[in-house]
């Protein structure tokens, strides 16, 4: 009830005083963040000097002096190197990336069939994006479509051999496509298997526990490089003559079981952090093991280890480059492979190619990292700082 008859009461709030000029705006921000103390000031100045020294050169190289178009090495080489650029020129050879861009994306996938890869990518995005946005409804249907139906569509589209689509062997796959297929399959296989392994490792049933411990410790104890190497060099020798096993499949399985073993330990860390009281509380309510795990333990445990899970994802995304060892070419592999094209050999070609590959990897890893931060904030209801 409002008491308007009291003479000494304000009827409305007094307008806020503006903060002192030193406490607001650019000046305050600078004082607070860059020049708060003498050491801060020194560090800021040193940082500025370093940036001033490096940044103009980088911009010069990457944009101003860069060669954007061209059809062969002469566009990216100086006169002394047999090209058209003035002596002493140094700039990025984006023409190389431009000429090879399709190859960096699709490898040697037949040119007239590349729409299939793009279609698969588009369907994947169309299913993934709504799943990632919390406010979009029908999450269950969406997840079933993405994890239950999409793999078959993707397989039919990418491999072909059905519905009149020509068969494309995996030896012709390459570039970003291989990186993404390997890491998406790795990610979606490793999380469920990792959770099962982690639960198995904490199980009270000795056989299950032993099997899980042996699996995890064996896989974690061997470098991925060795497993891929064994799979590609030794494995064919044990098979009957003439029988081969798709290389890509070998790599896919290798990457997936690896990620699962690492994921298991990350998830176990989360399970370990759940206080005993949670189990006892669930037991007192009469929940079964699976109910306890599914309704009480896992939601809390997984929330705790989001940074660890995403860390594993990002690590795996970058580890896919190791398939170069077995003659598969992921994004980095195909960029490096193209350094051997004599038509484009120049001092600037390798560095430009590597910068490009690095940028693409960064885009994906940074995207994953930002989304995980968003999810952490959203789910972090109990431990908010």
């Amino acid at each position: 009830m409002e008491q308007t008859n009291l003479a000494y009461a304000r009827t409305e709030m007094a307008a806020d005083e503006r903060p002192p000029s030193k406490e607001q705006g650019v000046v305050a921000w600078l004082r607070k963040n860059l020049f708060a103390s003498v050491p801060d000031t020194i560090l800021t100045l040193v940082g500025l000097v370093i940036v001033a020294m490096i940044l103009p050169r980088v911009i010069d190289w990457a944009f101003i002096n860069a060669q954007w178009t061209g059809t062969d090495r002469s566009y990216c080489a100086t006169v002394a190197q047999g090209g058209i650029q003035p002596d002493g020129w140094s700039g990025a050879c984006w023409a190389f990336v431009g000429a090879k861009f399709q190859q960096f994306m699709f490898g040697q996938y037949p040119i007239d069939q590349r729409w299939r890869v793009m279609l698969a990518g588009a369907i994947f995005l169309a299913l993934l994006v709504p799943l990632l946005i919390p406010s979009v409804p029908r999450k269950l249907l969406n997840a079933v479509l993405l994890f239950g139906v999409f793999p078959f569509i993707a397989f039919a589209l990418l491999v072909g051999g059905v519905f009149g689509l020509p068969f494309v062997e995996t030896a012709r796959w390459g570039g970003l496509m291989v990186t993404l297929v390997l890491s998406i399959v790795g990610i979606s296989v490793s999380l469920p298997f990792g959770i099962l392994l982690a639960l198995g490792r904490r199980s009270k049933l000795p056989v299950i526990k032993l099997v899980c411990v042996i699996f995890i410790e064996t896989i974690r104890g061997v470098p991925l490089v060795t497993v891929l190497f064994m799979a590609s060099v030794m494995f064919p020798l044990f098979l009957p003559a003439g029988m081969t096993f798709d290389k890509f499949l070998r790599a896919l399985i290798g990457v997936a079981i690896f990620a699962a073993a690492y994921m298991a330990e990350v998830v176990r860390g989360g399970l370990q952090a759940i206080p005993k009281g949670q189990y006892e509380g669930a037991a007192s309510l009469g929940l079964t093991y699976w109910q306890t795990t599914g309704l009480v333990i896992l939601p809390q445990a997984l929330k705790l280890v989001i940074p660890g899970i995403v860390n594993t994802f990002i690590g795996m995304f970058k580890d896919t480059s190791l398939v170069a060892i077995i003659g598969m070419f992921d994004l980095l592999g195909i960029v490096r492979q193209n350094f051997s094209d004599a038509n484009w050999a120049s001092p600037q070609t390798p560095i430009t190619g590597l910068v490009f590959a690095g940028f693409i990897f960064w885009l994906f890893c940074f995207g994953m990292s930002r989304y995980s931060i968003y999810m952490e904030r959203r789910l972090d209801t109990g431990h908010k700082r």
Partner: protein
Amino acid sequence: MKNHVKAILGAAVLGLAASAASVSSADTLSDVKAKGFVQCGVNTGLAGFSAPDDKGEWKGFDVDFCRAVASAIFGDPSKVKFTPTNAKERFTALQSGEIDLLARNTTWTLGRDTALGLTFVGVNYYDGQGFMINAKKLPGVTSALQLSGASVCVQSGTTTELNLADYFKANNLEYNPVVFEKLEEANAAYDSGRCDAYTTDQSGLYSIRLTLASPDDHIVLPEIISKEPLAPAVRQGDDKWFNVVKWTYNALVLAEEYGITQANVDEMKSSKNPDIQRVLGAEAGTTLGTGLGLDNDWVVKIIKGVGNYGEIFDRNIGAGSPLKIARGLNALWTKGGLQYAMPIR
């Protein structure tokens, strides 16, 4: 340490490969005809020898040899599938039957011929390990024997490293090897002056020159410290297939000798020269091609598909390519080189 592990693993692979050699299938030619293409192992990327072009098609000297074999069998240079192989897996790929033919700048050695169970078909490129130095930095150096105390950039994991050590030891010279895993790392280190000299196969030195900041300052020293006869290889114990690949190589060289090119091969069929007629299968009642298990006009198909040896050389690594490697030892025997084909008759 890392290299020791590699050596042990490598030895294990070799041992297994040798034991697997006996299980390989016997009639590759029929298998190839049945499946409709040749599966060819090539380098994962070596300038001029096998590298993808802008469209992602394999191009190069070794690649064209694979295409020549495909042309001989199918009359179509595109009926070949390439398996990029690295130095470690190339032999097992051949042993296990994953590939039918290995054309991957592989040096013909006794050990590979015996312990690994390979059969080399003929040297299609005579290479050798050499040195490159920056003449501005080391003025007056004209021989590798003057490189005492020099630091030498070298790529790890190949026989290059071994040859380098042998050479300096044999000549009682001091040197510091600067070893790199990746080719472009070694190139960058050499270009930035971290090493005085760079050593690899001479064919490789030419492609490395293309990536140097000032190529004219660098010279290739005259010493060749190792023999590297590069040869395509097939599995042991399949003589029919071996013959097809071996004679494809001979036909390429012979065609250059007789001046048969991609452009004039059809006119040459009506040549008066009986040798040329025989080679091109134009002689009446000839059974030279069918004896190989191919058609009698198999040489015509090869030359139409990829050209003769000289054309392949020029297009990929010679004057018509950015590498501009001189023919040198790879010139025909009639022109002072070593390329000498067995007669087709």
